[in-house]
C-alpha cells in the first residue's frame, strides 16, 4: 500500500506558490530604488503635502453649497462656490431652451441616454437596432422642436445644453460610422474613380482642423447653395461633424479591412458571395473586432468635439455654461461652473471608455484565432 500512496503523492504536484511582496519591499523597489528616484518621490510627497490640504479646504470644507443670491460666496474665507450649480443648473443643462418647456429637453436627453445604454447590451446587437435609433432620434427631435401633439414650436436656434450635445454626438457617430465604412471600402477599392474620390475626401478633411470645417459649414456653405435653399445652421454643423468624424474613423476601418487575410476574401469568393455580402458577412464583422478599441477612441473624441459648435454660436453644454456664468452675480465663479461640466464630460467619456474595455475583454475571450 505504501508505495502506491507515495506514487500518487508525488504525481500530484502543486504549482509553485506566488510570492507576495511585502508592502515595504514594494515601496522600496518602486519609489526608492535609486537616488534620483528617491528625490522624485520626496518632491512629489512635498507637493502633495502643500497642495492637498488647501485643495480640500477649497473644494469641501469652506465650500458654499447653497446661497440663492451668491452673497455667502463673497465671504472672505469662502471656498468653492458650488451654490452656482443649484442656482444655474437648468441654464447649464438646457441653455436657452424656454424655461417652462425644459421637461421636453430633459425627456429628449433621457431618450438618447437610455437608447445608448440599451445599445450597449451585446445580446441586442443587430441591424434592426439602427432603425430603432432612427426612431429614437426622430422622437427626440420632435420633442425638442414641437409643433405636434400640442407642443409649442421651439426653433433650433433656441436649443442648447445637454440635449444639443447629445444630439450632435449621437448624430455624428450614427451618421459618421456608415460613411466611414463606405469611405474606407472606397479607399481600398479597385475602381480608380471611387478610390480617388474617397482618398480625396479623407485626406482633405483630415488635413484641416474641425474648427475650419465648422466655419465652412456655418459661413461658407450658404454662399454656395442656390438662392432660396437654406439649410438650418444646426444641420450644417451636424453635417460638418459627420464628415469630420467619418474621415478619421475611415482610416481606422481601413486598418481593420487590411488586417483581414487574403484567404478570407478568396474563401468568400470561392463560395460565390457577392461583394456586398462578402463585405457585410465576412469582412466587416472581423474588421470591427480588430478596430474596436481604436474606434471607441474616435467615438469618445466625437463626444468632446461637440464643444466646438459653440464657436459658431450654438450653445452646447459648454457654451451654455459660459452663458450661464455671464450673470454679474456669478461671473466670478465660472470656474465652479466649468468644473461641474468637466465632471459631466468625465462621467460620459469615462463610462464609454470602461464600456469599451469590457467589450474588448469579452471579445478577446471568445476569439480563438
Amino acid at each position, binding site marked *: 500500500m505504501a508505495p502506491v500512496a507515495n506514487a500518487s503523492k508525488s504525481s500530484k504536484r502543486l504549482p509553485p506558490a506566488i510570492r507576495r511582496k511585502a508592502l515595504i519591499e514594494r515601496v522600496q523597489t518602486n519609489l526608492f530604488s535609486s537616488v534620483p528616484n528617491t528625490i522624485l518621490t520626496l518632491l512629489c510627497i512635498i507637493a502633495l503635502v502643500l497642495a492637498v490640504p488647501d485643495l480640500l479646504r477649497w473644494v469641501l470644507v469652506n465650500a458654499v453649497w447653497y446661497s440663492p443670491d451668491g452673497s455667502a460666496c463673497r465671504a472672505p474665507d469662502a471656498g468653492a462656490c458650488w451654490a452656482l450649480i443649484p442656482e444655474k443648473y437648468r441654464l447649464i443643462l438646457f441653455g436657452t431652451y424656454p424655461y417652462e418647456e425644459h421637461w421636453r429637453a430633459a425627456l429628449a436627453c433621457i431618450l438618447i441616454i437610455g437608447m445608448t445604454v440599451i445599445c450597449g447590451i451585446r445580446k441586442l446587437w443587430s441591424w434592426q437596432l439602427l432603425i430603432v435609433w432612427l426612431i429614437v432620434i426622430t422622437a427626440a427631435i420632435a420633442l425638442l422642436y414641437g409643433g405636434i401633439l400640442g407642443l409649442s414650436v421651439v426653433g433650433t436656434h433656441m436649443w442648447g445644453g445637454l440635449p444639443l450635445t447629445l444630439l450632435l454626438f449621437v448624430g455624428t457617430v450614427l451618421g459618421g460610422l456608415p460613411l466611414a465604412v463606405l469611405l474606407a471600402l472606397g479607399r481600398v477599392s479597385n475602381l480608380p474613380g471611387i478610390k480617388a474620390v474617397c482618398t480625396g475626401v479623407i485626406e482633405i478633411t483630415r488635413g484641416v482642423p474641425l474648427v475650419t470645417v465648422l466655419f465652412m459649414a456655418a459661413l461658407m456653405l450658404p454662399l454656395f447653395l442656390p438662392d432660396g435653399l437654406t439649410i438650418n445652421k444646426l444641420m450644417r454643423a451636424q453635417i460638418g461633424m459627420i464628415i469630420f468624424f467619418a474621415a478619421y474613423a475611415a482610416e481606422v476601418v481601413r486598418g481593420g479591412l487590411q488586417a483581414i*487575410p487574403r*484567404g*478570407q476574401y*478568396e*474563401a*468568400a*469568393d*470561392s*463560395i*460565390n*458571395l*457577392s461583394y456586398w*455580402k462578402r463585405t457585410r*458577412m*465576412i469582412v466587416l*464583422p*472581423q474588421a470591427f*473586432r480588430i478596430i474596436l478599441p481604436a474606434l471607441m477612441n474616435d467615438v469618445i473624441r466625437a463626444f468632446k468635439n461637440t464643444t466646438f459648435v459653440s464657436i459658431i454660436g450654438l450653445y452646447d453644454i459648454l457654451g451654455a455654461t459660459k452663458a450661464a456664468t455671464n450673470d454679474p452675480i456669478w461671473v466670478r465663479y465660472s470656474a465652479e461652473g466649468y468644473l461641474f461640466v468637466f465632471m459631466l464630460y468625465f462621467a460620459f467619456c469615462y463610462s464609454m471608455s470602461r464600456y469599451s474595455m469590457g467589450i474588448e475583454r469579452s471579445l478577446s475571450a*471568445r*476569439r*480563438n*484565432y
Partner: protein
Amino acid sequence: MKDVETEAMVEFRNLNKWFGDFHVLRDVNFSVGSGERIVVCGPSGSGKSTLIRCVNGLEQHQEGSIRVDGVEVTEHRKSIEMVRRSVGMVFQQFNLFPHLTVLENLTLGPCSVQGRPEREVRAKAMELLEMVRIPEQVLKYPGELSGGQQQRVAIARALIMEPKVMLFDEPTSALDPEMIGEVLEAMVELAKAGMTMIVVTHEMGFARQIADRVVFMDDGEIVEVAPPAEFFSNPQNARTRLFLSQILAH
C-alpha cells in the same frame, strides 16, 4: 455557351499566364473528364497552384481558354459566378470564417448565395459533417478545432455548395503530420463517391491510391501525364525522375 461535343469537366487550352514578366503557365493543354481524379505535383514555383486557382477565377489567365462544364472562364463577373457555382475549393490554410461557428461556416453559402431553405441546409450540413467525421464539433468556432478538423470542415463547406468539381490546393501542407491522415481519408471517401477532383499535393501515397492520372508540372509547363502506376514505376522525362527521386527519398 454549353459545348455538347466535349465531355470534359475542366479543359485547359493553350493556357498562358504571366505575373508581371514572370511566365507562370506556359501553353497548358489538358482536360479532366467527368468523375476523373487528377493529382498535380511538381516542385514549388512550378505553377500548379496557379493553374487550379485559374479554374475558379481566383487568378486571371492572359492567353488561351479554360472551360468548366462547358462554360468558359473569362474576366466577366457573370462567367466567373457561373463557373464558381460548379467548382468547390479547399485551401492550404483552410480559410474558414473564424467569427462563425462550424455550422454557420457551412450554411452561409447555401442560405445566402443559393437561397436554399435553412432547415434542409442544416440537415445537409450535419450529413456532411458526419461524412468528414466531426459532427460533434458543429457549434464550435474554427479556432477551437485542430488543423485537421478545420480542413475537414473546409471540405464540407465546399461540398455543401454541391459542386461538380473539387479543387484542392495543397490541402495537407499546413498540417501537423499526425493530422494528414484524417484529411486524406475524407478525400479518399469523396473520390470513391465519384467526385471530379483536381488535387495539388505532394502526398504520393494518396496519388497512388486514388488518382486516375498524375500530372507533373515544372516551370509552368505540364511535363508528363500518366496513370499513377506508370508515373511512379516508369517516368518518361528526366525532370520527372529527378523530382520523384527527391520527393520519394524521404
